[in-house]
């Protein structure tokens, strides 16, 4: 089963980057999301997958029983997901503002003709 995960990560990275290169705003957001999903999954998988062993130390034992999952990648992943959520929320609001302001959903149509404030 593990062999599926690298391919899945590859597909997520590739489709994310492809969509980011697209001119359409909505696809840009989708691309950002897929790219961050790919990154998160990569970090999770590269921390080595262990099934069925929780990293909780018994009251009686000194250390956890040996096949246990590494909790650090999961902690990293949680942090990264939260950060990604924040940035994606900002991205969606920003793109909504851009859409309202420029009245287009094509990145190439943005024109920087107006006076820049100082």
């Amino acid at each position, binding site marked *: 089963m593990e062999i599926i995960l690298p391919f899945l990560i590859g597909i997520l990275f590739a489709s994310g980057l492809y969509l980011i290169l697209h001119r359409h705003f909505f696809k840009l957001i989708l691309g950002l999301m897929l*790219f961050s999903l790919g990154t998160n999954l990569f*970090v999770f998988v590269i921390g080595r997958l262990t099934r069925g062993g929780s990293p909780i130390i018994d009251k009686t034992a000194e250390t956890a029983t040996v096949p246990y999952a590494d909790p*650090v990648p999961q902690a990293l992943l949680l942090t*990264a997901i939260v950060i990604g959520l924040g940035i994606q929320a*900002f991205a969606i609001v920003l793109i909504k503002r851009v859409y309202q302001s420029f009245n287009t959903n094509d990145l190439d149509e943005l024109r920087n003709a107006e006076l820049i404030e*100082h």
Partner: protein
Amino acid sequence: MNHLLLLLPLLIPIYGALLCLFSWRNVALQKIIALMAQSALFVTAVLLLLWVNANGIVLTQIGNWPAPFGITIVADLFSCLILLSSTVIGVAVSLYSLYGLDEQRQRHGYYPIMLLLQLGVSGACLTGDLFNLFVWFEVLLICCFVLMALGGTRPQLEASIKYMTINFLASGFLLTGIGVMYGLTGTLNMAELARMVRTPDPDSHQDLVTMASMFFLVAFGIKSAVFPLFFWLPASYHTPPVAISAFIAGIVTKVGVYAMVRLFTLVFIPESDFTLLILSVIAGLTMVIGVLGAAAHYDFRKILSFHIVSQIGYMIMGLALFTPLALGGAIYFIIHNILVKTNLFLISGVVAKQHGTFALKDLGGVYASQPFLALLFGVSAFSLAGLPPLSGFWGKFMLAKAGLETGSYLLVTTSLVVSLLTLFSMTKIWNEVFWKMKPVAENTNTTEATPHLQFLYFPVIFLTCFILFISFFAAPLINLASRAAQQLFHPELYMNAILKPPLK
């Protein structure tokens, strides 16, 4: 007490930002809080530098978890110097924003976000944990995104999209690199990582470490705008108001350089010719392309933005040469560049406040109307170009000397030619903005008298004093920078300080 001093650079901005948020409706109070927080941060950074200077590397373990398991907050001379220069420009930009930023933006959270940005910078400078570094970078970047878009004018919105997308990608690469490093070594503490990379198991993969280092190179390369990855910078830094762009231009790319120097001296062993060759090529091309871009533009802040790119090349050059002298030169150069670049942006703001534009062709006659401002510009511009005895000269001198000692003649020649071209584009600004007659404007609605213009001079004078100080009394700072470089060059100091088992 000592641990508190190490944590104050993080505590002051976050509490300052919280207080600002509590007084959301009272902008006057926010101004006072922000200015006091920035000043307190400046004092703290000075004290921290003195302390580290006297005692060597200092650290504290968050939550008292011993080193490879918990998060370490650590300060050596290099991080203290970057922290100190960031607080200097923090004070200057806060002073500028009191009268230089429009009411609307001030009311919509400029001050708390500036303090949070400062928090991100302090955190990135002081952390000793790889994932924590990523988190601080995200703090810093989210604040940059918001500041970029604050106000929501159309050029700002357009720039924000580019800035956000490319920096989001950079964060993804950074996280991927961190994942690879964790998968290889099973630790995230930078000192422990350094130890494990230096004493490899027979079954660990040295080539995979090099691959991971390339992820970091790309990620920090995007954040610090080096050659093939810099295009977002000149496309975005000229759009927000000067009180925002001066700070972002001054510090954010340099934090990227800081992280790059830190990781490539500590964790990744850059003696491998492959990495150093890549860094030299990047350094040379960054300098040249940046300065050529500046030569082609006729907007005050666009020229300055391209010069940021060009100057980043010198800092990478210090890393690429990889001798103590070169690293010292790079550190001195980073400090010099933070001060000078912010000052030039602030000056462009003062000019634009009065004349209503950043376009060189519409400006003119500033030397006649404000000779003192012209003098201040001259100091910073010549310093940027590296004319002796101003500060840029000392940095470039150290870098060039180190380059000649290691025999990288091509890189040294490139850096000297780029200095000349920098002088050329500074003279272009001088001629167009300060010297030529003011062109007769077709619509004369631009020059409404700006109130409080004289207050905008204070931060510029403040920064110019610092620039003159590190120019004419360069010896103490060069001494400090050289010792910081020695610390970087002997990573065992850093490792021993952190991994020394504090078992009780």
